[in-house]
């Protein structure tokens, strides 16, 4: 059937795609190419300097103590953010799936943080996670914990270099776990009741039903969520700016923040571009296999 496609139709489809192709071609690939070239140049002051220096900037970056900390922070943040959002999102979806009264109300409450800008979230959570001090008194969450008698749970949050970016991860989970919940809820609703009944009839406990029937069926959603959350995580920047800044000993610093500072404050445009390329490569490692796999899988359908 496909082979009988008329030439005219072919042309129309291509024309329909053309504006997007050109736009993305220039604004994404053209710019990436430009960034790649700059990352291998010597442009380290405001006046552009395009002399080619190979991979020197990249070697310098990996030896840079701040960048090493950034990479570690990014790994910790991504791991926490992903597992936290997935776990909480899934848990809430499972709970809401149980014919709960006021489901719409709960769902709205869990979902609304997603509508906020990271800047707003950062500002509020900066206040919430400000530990206060013995002299001036506690504030934020610490104050709340004190009030309800859980004072021993107090922490320095982002002011404590050992906690650092983990505190930021909490704010990020707060913002995005509702979205994961919405996805899982939609997925759960899409699983026919017969499948669950069948498993139960076969003698499976509730827990086994989840483990062997439901979770596997939700795998595409999990994968999709990982991709969306993963790429937000790698680019995280606004939240750091608004909430913590780089933190003590760079405990809250991330590559995107370092990129900003090194480009626009230290005028090291080439170094900034190198960080951008590294981020891109990390994202590609995550995304490209998934893209190829999922697109190919559909072709088989």
């Amino acid at each position, binding site marked *: 059937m496909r082979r009988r496609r008329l030439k005219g139709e072919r042309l129309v489809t291509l024309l329909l795609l053309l504006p997007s192709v050109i736009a993305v071609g220039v604004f994404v690939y053209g710019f990436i190419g430009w960034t790649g070239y700059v990352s291998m140049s010597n442009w380290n002051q*405001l006046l552009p300097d395009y002399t080619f220096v190979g991979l020197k900037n990249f070697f310098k970056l990996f030896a840079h103590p701040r960048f090493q900390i950034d990479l570690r922070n990014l790994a910790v943040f991504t791991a926490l953010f992903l597992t936290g959002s997935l776990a909480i999102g899934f848990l809430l979806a499972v709970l809401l799936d149980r014919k709960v009264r006021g489901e719409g109300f709960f769902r709205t409450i869990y979902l609304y943080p997603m509508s906020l800008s990271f800047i707003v979230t950062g500002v509020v959570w900066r206040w919430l996670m400000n530990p206060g001090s013995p002299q001036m008194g506690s504030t934020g969450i610490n104050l709340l914990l004190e009030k309800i008698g859980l004072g021993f749970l107090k922490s320095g949050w982002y002011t404590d270099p050992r906690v650092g970016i983990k505190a930021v991860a909490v704010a990020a989970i707060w913002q995005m776990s509702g979205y994961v919940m919405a996805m899982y809820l939609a997925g759960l609703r899409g699983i026919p009741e017969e499948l669950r009944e069948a498993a139960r009839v076969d003698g499976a406990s509730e827990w086994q039903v989840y483990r062997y029937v439901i979770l596997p069926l939700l795998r595409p959603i999990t994968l999709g969520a990982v991709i969306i959350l993963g790429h937000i995580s790698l680019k995280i920047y606004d939240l750091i700016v608004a909430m913590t800044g*780089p933190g003590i000993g760079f405990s809250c610093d991330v590559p995107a923040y370092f990129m900003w500072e090194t480009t*626009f404050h*230290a005028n090291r445009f080439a170094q900034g571009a190198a960080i951008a390329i590294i981020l891109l490569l990390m994202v590609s490692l995550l995304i490209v296999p998934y893209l190829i796999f999922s697109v190919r899988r559909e072709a088989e359908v």
Partner: protein
Amino acid sequence: MWRKSYLVGLLAVVLLSWLGWGQAGHEYVVPATTTLKAIAQETLGDAAYAPAVMRATNAKSLADPTYLKIRTLDMEIPEGAKLWIPERVWAEAFMAFWDPNRPEDLFGGGKLVVGSWWTAGGEAEGLNALFEIYDEYYPDVQIVNATIAGGAGFVFRAVIKPRLIAGDPPDTFQLHAGLEVEGYSPETYLTPLDELFEIMGWTEVLPKDLLDLLLYKGHFWGVPVNIHRANVLWYDKAIFDKYGITPPENWDEFFAICEKLKAEGVVPFVMGNAGGWEAAHLFETILISTMGAEGYKGLWTGETPWTSAGVTEALEILKKILDYVNPDYAALSWDGAGEYLIAHKGAMMIMGDWTNGWFMAKGYEDYGWAPVPDTGGIFDALSDTFCLPKRAPNPINALGWLMVCGSKEGQIAFNTRKGSIPARTDLTAAEKAQFNPYLRSCMDDFARDAIVPSVIHGAAAIESWVTDFKDAVNLFLATKDVAGTQRALVEAAEAALAAMKG
């Protein structure tokens, strides 16, 4: 009390403006048909000033239609036409900076886009005061306040640089005096202002140390509006009186005070590092105390090695201070830390004298000040300037702005509100009386102390060095590794000095 003298000053400004002094020029009715060149020759003594007369008259005519609209330079000026002859100084400046390839500049009007990061509190008020003065001189110009918040220009810089590279800068923007200008590649993107300085006579009224700072690659690139002092120790008088303490003159006394207060449950020293630069600011002042004025200056020119014992000592002092500091400093910006003093829960704080303006805004008067221990007689200076980008869309309007910024009138209006001292040193005693007690003592100190450039605030070093310096200190707060940090500082210096030579 100082508010009253500020009102008097304001009244004086208004009065003078009304008297027409603000308009910088005078009216001239043409007795017989003639040319612009002849008029310029007659009134200003040089026919070449014709374009200046044209511009001034056209600008005036936009506000007051009784003035002649001059369409071309060669136009015949009819008898009875009313012209506006600008002050000679203004005409000189105009001729020095006007590009004959830009005839559009002869017509007045247009915009003045001012870029800065002064968005709230005393800074915004100061900026507005300058706008008001500008508006009196140039009512034909529409002022656009393109300010972007973010401490020390954090966001602003990222926005201005792409604009400079793309060739679409604002007409003028805020720039720290000193080596920060290197980060803007001024030979390519900014217009040198040497002639303006000469014409306006600023080289006479600005202090030599400031002029040295403003000079980069042999030219002046910015007009300074103010001077701030960075090495100030603020303390809460209530606590000091209660425990019978006097301000420390050296670090031994300082730590003795800290020990005493810590035992009493008061936070001896407060700091806020949420902005990422405050700790480095503190460290800069400690460096001055251990290296002395000349030693410190030499660190930034390569004359003093960073391996010096003074640097090690400074790091040790900072490490010791961390034992007495408020535990939540990472969450607070410097003004958040200042709250400790206001609440009488914290005793001392080291921060620049914008703190003074902030205390006033908070209604806190029970504070004292002293130079940072062991820095008596040394003034750690920073200055805000405005520059003229090469491709400014309205360069003559920007020129007018620079003249307002450098004028005594402008500087008094600005600084009384912002809480800094004017860059000019030619204020009369009556004019100085408009400033509050701290600022007056600051002006005296500035006149006699040894002046050193601040590094965190863009004076002493190029931006990449400032960033590396800041990063090293921030890492030190966590690692407390003296040797490692000193090594990092040495490397940063080597990289920067090499870059500066290139």
